[in-house]
């Protein structure tokens, strides 16, 4: 069962930027690329916990602000020689609205 709830509008996020959504399971970073794709990933770098939402966004990737690991926004995987991954969350766009599947939170919380 998905449970889509609105977390913001496209224009709330600058292009090549990110905003955070605080949730009971932790902070989630919502990214917007230069071409207006949106992605959501856990706002916590698997290396040493860097806030990925604060990194530089290029293509569909983000560079962690603490030690420059690069992550794919789509798969959550670290790129290049670094190994690790962040959790990704499903997003949906309806016009300007960005929706997140809230049911995942129950699932994660139950883990």
């Amino acid at each position: 069962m998905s449970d889509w709830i609105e977390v913001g509008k496209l224009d709330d996020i600058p292009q090549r930027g990110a905003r955070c959504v605080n949730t009971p399971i932790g902070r989630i970073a919502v990214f917007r690329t230069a071409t207006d794709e949106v992605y959501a990933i856990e706002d916590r770098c698997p290396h040493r916990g860097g806030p990925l939402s604060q990194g530089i966004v290029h293509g569909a990737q983000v560079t962690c602000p603490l030690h420059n690991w690069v992550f794919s926004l789509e798969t959550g995987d670290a790129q290049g020689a670094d190994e690790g991954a962040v959790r990704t969350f499903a997003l949906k766009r309806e016009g300007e609205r960005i929706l997140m599947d809230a049911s995942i939170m129950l699932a994660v919380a139950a883990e």
Partner: protein
Amino acid sequence: MTEKLVVVGAGMASGRMLEHLFEANPDAFDVTLFGAEPRGNYNRIMLSPVLAGEKTYDEIVTHDANWYAENGVNCRFGETVTRIDRKAKVVFSGERETPYDKLVIATGSAPFIIPIAGKDLPGVMAFRDLDDVDAMAAAAGKPNAKAVVIGGGLLGLEAAAALRLRGMEVVVLHLMGHLMERQLDPAAGYLLQKELEGRGIKIHCKAQTKAVLGEERAEAVVLEDGTIYPADIVVMAVGIRPETRIAVDAGLYVERGIVVNDQMVSSDPDILAVGECVEHESICYGLVAPLYDMAKVAAKTLVKEDAAFRPVETATQLKVTGVNLYSAGDFAEGDDREEIVLRDGSAGIYKRLVLKENRILGAVLYGETADGSWFFNMLKKGTDVAEMRDTLIFGQAYQGGGQLDPMAAVAALPDDTEICGCNGVCKGKIVGTITEKGLTTLDAVRAHTKASNSCGTCTGLVEQLMRLTLGDTYNPAAVQPMCGCTDLGHDDVRRLIKAKGLKTIPAVMQELEWKTSCGCAKCRPALNYYLVADWPDEYADDYQSRFVNERVHANIQKDGTYSVVPRMWGGVTSSKELRAIADVVDKFNIPTVKVTGGQRIDMLGIQKEDLPAVWADLSKAGFVSGHAYAKGLRTVKTCVGSDWCRFGTQDSTGLGIRIEKFMWGSWTPAKVKMAVSGCPRNCAEATCKDVGVVCVDSGFEIHFAGAAGLDIKGTEVLGLVKTEDEALEVIVALVQMYREQARYLERIYKWAKRVGIEEIRRQIMEDTGKRKAFFDRFVFSQKFAQVDPWSERVSGKDKHEFKPMAELGFPQAAE
């Protein structure tokens, strides 16, 4: 008895549907066609050429009176259908009732009018039908007429280009960062903007329209930032929405558009819908190709044949004569996607293909669009392109063709491009001298042309020109490219930004033929700095290309909190300042307060959300940002000097404060730290700084190029000056020279090593003209840089940085 078919809307979709219907069975229905416009169907797409004066209305009519007569269509043009009574199966046009057995709704879309003050004034119009075109053409007839077009999408730009052709002064206001953002990526948007500006159209991106001004009629448009553009007409072309009013009133199932199934039948089995008013599988279309498919299906459904509409990919082409632009499919980036980019800076060509698993997902072509349909065809078919991948981007004609040439960018430079900034030598001169004098070595070129003879920043370019002229016999020293996105090194890029007058990141990427569409975390901050340094008044700082510290004006810590370091000019403070800091520390529960190695106070462990409030309190006490995070001026350490110290020879504290107040806020290639000591005992440690001053009885000894971080290195002496004023001028000029020449992240000592201490001394100490010019350029750039970023943010700038977008609680489990 023949069944009665009523069609509402005499536009492109219903026109095509009737053609198919009469072809399939001319006698199946008795047809009545309503049209709100006082005319039959015409090719709406061609309104742009009509507006431009390149075509007449007669040439774009698709169905004339004869056609309607021959097919026995009962025409009701100029008559708007106001209501449908589904029970009685009649439609109302005002008082008049018309019965139907089958009804087709084909009402198209309504232009979206932004709800701002003045939107209803005469002179404000949309661009949708012939009446709009007539109104615009009439306005263009007046001498010096001005138009403001709101919307930089397909429609707005076609209107703007056409009005410009008619001699109007035209401004396009566009909300987003680049034109046609739905079809184009930023690079192609940049090329398009350049082309339109070349035709005399003013383009204003990121423009938030606030209101249309005027008493009797529209006179001007005002933006949120206060900019005002005078206007005789205002054309709103910001988008369309499906025209569904009669369907909603009749209780049909309508989401964004009238929802239909694959047979184009609405929630009422006797009512069909086609065209832009329709929503199929959550998609509404705004281009004719899919509407024609709908028309075909609807005709079949009406004559009870099987047919199904399937969603299709659409391709767009901008109809502005002389502009070649093509975009199709989905060209967003993604990680399982690869892109192939081809840029030809001199010819203004940009092509980008997005592939996934060797299949084309999207294509953007600018400048040369002949291959558009070839790519589009493979996109629709899902053709596997693995075999021709390497040459795919060159197009159909080049299959089996050549490789990208890394020297292409330099080869393409016009002869009058200035290559050596120090000595003012252009490309033509260098190439000419090499050939005339038969030069074969870099030193010979330096001797004869003076190019690359001073700071050496242009050496890479000069060598590439030698390679170009001499062929493979000349082997230039390998340049370290800036990053994987380009073959050019930092120096080449810096020179070319200046020489070609490039003023935005997309401009640099296009003209210098970047290999990626969006750059990376290495090149973007560097380019942003180069542009800030080279065009201080014109360049709009791109915050998304800055490292987080410079974006939020605080230092990120290992746990994601931030530290805040206010300026403490020359390391001097007061009880009032200390008290203010103490209050802030208490109020925000700041866990650590520390005296830094730079003679000031650091507050560590502040939550990002609290930053604006912390700054607000600090600002009230008179503090500004210490830029402890910046590639910019950091600290100017001082000692107590002649004010107190028994050995002090000059007012070292005063000079340090003066320098810091003069230079704060400036961005530099890497951080710049300074110190002023009052005597050679050197308590401020001036002899290991980027720039240092050691005061002596006879004046001020200026030092530079020291290091005490990753490397340890004593400073070099630049020279001795007599007065404080001279000391300031020398220091400022030196830093400006560094700002203009160094590579991003290169500290002064590394730059000095590359350029040569002697050369710097010559330009700053000996050539007073040069020194003055450097000084003046620094002063000019400070006009735009010396703004306290903290107070700016306290007053609301970049609010989004400091607040989460949403707070979610646990979702309620569904019952």
